[in-house]
């Protein structure tokens, strides 16, 4: 059993959620709710490269609903 995310030759997309978080995703799989495509289908390396270029602020964007300490 090999994890499909590790398939070096597989087809992937990059997803993004409203926190600005990115996710590598299998091109063939359904896109989970709350995520949208940030980078269309591409090779694995290209997708990761895309994330490295575009996800520059890794802090989750704090929404108004987050409780304050």
């Amino acid at each position, binding site marked *: *059993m*090999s*994890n*499909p*995310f590790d398939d070096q030759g*597989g087809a992937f997309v*990059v*997803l993004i*959620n*409203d*926190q600005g*978080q*990115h*996710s*590598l*995703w*299998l091109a*063939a*799989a*359904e*896109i*989970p*709710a*709350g*995520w949208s495509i940030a980078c269309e289908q591409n090779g694995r390396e290209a*997708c*990761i*490269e895309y*994330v*490295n270029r*575009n*996800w*520059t602020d*890794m*802090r*989750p964007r*704090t929404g108004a609903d*987050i*409780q*304050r*300490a």
Partner: protein
Amino acid sequence: MDAINNSSQLLPLTTAQTGMWFAQKFSSPDSIFNLAEFIEIHGPIDPALFEAALRQVGIEAETVRVRFIEQSDGPRQLIAPILDTTFPLIDVSSEPDPRAAAESWMMAELTRPVDLLTGPLWVCALFKAAPEQYFWYHRGHHIVMDGFSGGLLARRVAEIYTAFAEGRCPDEGTFGPLEFLLEEETTYRSSERFARDRHYWLTRFADRPAAFSLADQRRQNVGGLRRQTIHLSAESVEALRATAQASGASLPQIMIAAISAYFYRVTGVEDLVVGLPVAARPKGRLRRIPSMVANAVPLRLAISPGMSAMSLIREVGRQVREALRRQCYRYEDLRRDLNLLPTNQHLFTTVINIEPFDYDLRFAGHRATPHNLSNGSADDLAVFVYDRGDGKGLRIDFDANPGLYSAKDLAGHQQRLVRLVDAIVRDPGRPIGAINLLDAAERRRVLVEWNDTARTVPRTTLAALIEAQVARRGDATAVTYEDTTLSYAALNARANRLAHLLIAQGAGPEQIVAVALPRSAELVVCLLAILKSGAAYLPLDPDYPADRIAFMLADAKPVCLITTNAIAQRPPETAPRLVLGHPYTADMLARQPDSNPRNQDRIAPLTPLDSAYVIYTSGSTGTPKAVVVSQGGLLNHMLWMMSAYPMGEQDRVLARTSVSFDAAGWEIWLPLLSGSVLSVAPADVTRDPQRLIDYIRHQGITVAQFVPSLLAATSELIGPADTHCLRQVFAGGEALTSGLVRTVTSAWNVQLVNLYGPTETTIQVTSSPWQQTWQHNGDGQFAPIGRPIWNTQVYVLDDGLQPVPVGVAGELYVAGSGLARGYLNRPGLTAERFVADPFGPPGSRMYRTGDRARWRPDGALHFLGRADHQVKIRGFRIEPGEIEAALAQHEGVVQAAVVARQDRVGDKRLVGYVVPAAGHAPDPTMLRLHLARTLPDYMIPAAFVVLDTLPLTPSGKLDRNALPAPDQQPATAYTPPRTAREEKLCALFAEALGLARVGIHDNFFDLGGHSLLAIRLGRRIRNEIRPDFPITAVYTTPIVSDLAALLDFDGASDGAPDLSRDILLPPHIKPSRARVTDKPERIFLTGATGFVGSHLLSTLLQETDAHIACHVRAADRRSAEIRLRQALDKRKLSACWDERRIEILTGNLAQPALGLDEKATRMVREECDAIYHCGANVEFLHNYSALKPANVDSVLTLLDWTANGRPKSLHYVSTLAVIDKHQSGPVSEHTDLTSWQGLVSGYSQSKWVGDTLARQAQARGLPVSIYRLSSVTGDRVNAICNETDLIWRLVRLYAELGVIPDLDVLVNMTPADDVARAIVRLAGREASWGSVYHLINSEPLHVREVPRIFDRLGLRLELVSLDRWTEIAQRRLAKTHDDDLAAVLSILAQEDTSRSHPEIASDFTQQHLAAVGAPIAPVRPALLERYFASLRLPEVVSDALAPATSNEQRSVDG
């Protein structure tokens, strides 16, 4: 057999029948080989006419009259002229449940073992269930029947019955004779087509893919049959047919594709091989002969999650067409071609059988419905699909090995298969990986119910909660470290000052403060201060290499690094420092307020999303990566843990884990949140089990956390009084085996909790307090890791990201509050590992752990090991964790590790490492036996290493890289040299092997020596000790002490010894008057570790009640026992082991009094009633003087002890090699062997002297028997030969060379168990004492017959003249430098071929053997074939055909 008259025709078996013959011989006795069904006839039947119809079929179909006989060269079939059987008519119509009554009779009949020689092979019965309902039961053994034949017979019975019922003669039958089958087979096997088919299959399976299984446990095949049936609904079948029509595929094709897709989904095996039974009757003529013709062909499918069902269906169609064109090439042949037979490997153990037979049977117009009852036992799993065309849908049977599958397993598989079939017909274009296998309820259970962990977490911070404890318990002790104690108030005040200072330096939310401090109370102050400042702490182990720390500082860019003066010098200045203890720092701290920092003090308000800590973990690329965990996640974890495993003010919690690991987090925060005492263990305590125990006792620790490796080491040392203070133990960081759980829970009075969580989650994500009931559920090799913590979800997903069913292995994913934020400054890596969660709230993520797990039925998780630790050896996918857990279940093992090592190129093997339990000394044999109970052969390590402790990494986990190579571990205890010669040899051995030291009992090959090294060592011995040293002697005498003795003795003389000087029996050896018992209570046995000796021991234990005192050459009793057990184990005789009846006496045959000490000598002389002297030094290359002590002097000693002390008999095992070629024949048991001048080897010379001495004792009237042995070969049960015997070395060489010398030599092979039984029975009968016996069989094998036997194994062997043979052998020797070959050639060179051996008579022996019921039967070719298989001859040949280095390789593997 009466019915067989002389006119019966004897026929060979077809290959298919031969396959079945051997399958039955080698399978479990409970295995079923019967094909059976009953045909339900919906109408009245006239039983007399029905029987007449059966009898008519009996006349027409030869196969139902076939019987088998076993001849010397294998089985034959003959066709009885008439069918000699009865057909019972059983009336069950008055039974409450007629069908059940009938079926129970049928099941009993078909599961009864069938003897191939006596049958019955074909059985029919007619049941009357009701006046208008009859069941015709018919079953045939698979050796005379296949599925196709069953249909042929059933249709013909229906035809004939119908004709009879209508009062007419049936049409003439068209069944062909069996002879046609044999003809067809011969034609096929010599055809071009056969060669082409063979080439096709060999090419397709050249890489020998491994068979897969749906079963999660691997056990032995237990025979029997478990069948589970499900029906595909009529609607589903309708949809299937529509799909078939639309796609142009056939229904069988779609079903094969669907079932294969299911196998893929459950196993994840992407290179899937399934077996497809085929009729293998390509010609019309073949289709008219009922018999066993069926074959199985392998389908090899490449499946991936993204593949659509449609493309799989097309692929199946293509492959089935290809396979059917080559369906006559037999699977047995393919296995042999691929060399899978010696290791009993298969290409597949799972088969799919689609049976769309047209079964519209009518009996005199009455409809009939067939019901299949048995297709025989399944190796693993066979899926049968029946489409009887009755419109009721498809019936799907799972026929399974009951040892592997429960009824519940099968039912679960079937329901999911049906769901998958339905999904495929709904949308054949859908990716296979995306199909949901679970029903709504199960899907909900695994995704939602078992993850229902929602809890409201209060709006607060960790710092605030600790400050609340400070307010409540200001004076109570918060932290201790050695002599330092801090109260809550003091801790808080110091942390506050530092926090204010950090804030002043820019620390705050979303900033990082690094800490590099030794373990101390100050460390806790710093961590708390960072928390209070709102920054994330980055703990760095000051012991890390400076450049690693430098890398981390440069990567994380902390606002400051808190450290001490001593440490501050080491890392380069990459971050601003705060040096504790520095006057400047002290001064600054003194100026800070000691009040709790508030949000308004911080540089920014603190939110739950802000980072709480940053921990580096090693990356697969070698670059460490930092995990960032949020404040909210940490708080969630702490609140969960306080609720799940509450601690109180009375608790003292051990902080043991290095703070650079995430698991240290709760050790520090939980006690401070709970008002407990945090006890920081000094560095020297944390990894030393004994110091740890002392620390726990002195400090009164109540709660502690261990990595399982350390827990095991600690549990070994701990006494009951040591831990009375401990109440709770957490284990985490590694898989916890149930064996360790047992040890800890039984010895300690603690609650043991298993924790699981990767660094990428918040410390832990699942936990499981140990429950007693978990010990007995059968799957407990690892303790469960339990259920998810608060606000956390865990998923077990397959490659298509679908949740797997309960009990099926998949990869573990984690979602929810337990998730880390990601990797610091590594967006790409974060996006790879933290991926969108399809099952969680919109926009949420899940972390893929890379760990494998499965759900237990109760909703707890089982950890199965790292996905990337899986190794592949010989094509088998292996989880080392599974072997480790099995090893740890051995009572003598506390800890185990298994790794695949490649210490030499091309030699990848499994090595097991074990730490013994106190008072245990597990040896490899025991461990192998233990593992063999639950694991298949390929999962049993090739070598074992016993270690005092397993090497640990700084975090306390197993350090796999630090495990030693097995070769460097001497198997025996070190014994220093005693003489100058031994000293020299020890040094040379050590030098050749590259070891620090070698003891005198060490074996060159056990220490990793192989033939190249042996030659090197031999040369060194020539240079250093003796110029004429025979280099091959290292090969034959690999133990230092033996080699020293050899050198000492061989130095003495050369040339022919005068044996006549040594045959004088001292006069004091004479018989006493006392009666000797033939029911001995105690027997002394020498040579019990030898080949014949171990069989003697086993037979003595079985056939007598005596205690057996075994003489074993070893340094001490323990090594002796190991040797003895290994000897038995090697021959699969371990079952005889009886602790109470075996006594072990260590000694050495070559020493005075056989090397026995005084006590042992007294025991043999005064307490034994019989002596079996089977031990001898059998080194063929040694000269007489080297062998005399062991082979002559020992006989004198034992004759002395026979004549003196307690009255006893002596049974001396001699050899036919004592018969000199110059002795005139025939030589009977009574011939006086006076000639010895023609004996050439030291061995036969020394045995002749021993034999002669024993004969003199007989002549004096002593109760002494002499048993002269021929070639003793493998036992009849397991066919395990003594590979090192000359005969097998020769056979091996012949096989390698492909030629055999044409010598006029008879080989008289005698199976070891026959020989042992003969000796023990003769020895147990007083009337047989005092004689010589020739233990040979009456039908020796001529050397010229050997090529024919090779041919049957598919091996070529050519008969050539001795000269030609020697020439070929010499040429090979020049190329390979094969020492074994050299040794054999030197022996053959001494052989005088001009003179043949005298004829040997054994009439006297045969009479006596008949009297004691212990005949020595001839070795038939069938047994010989098994010998060859157990010696792996076919492999030898294929190796020899490979280029050059083969010998080296083999000796290394061996």
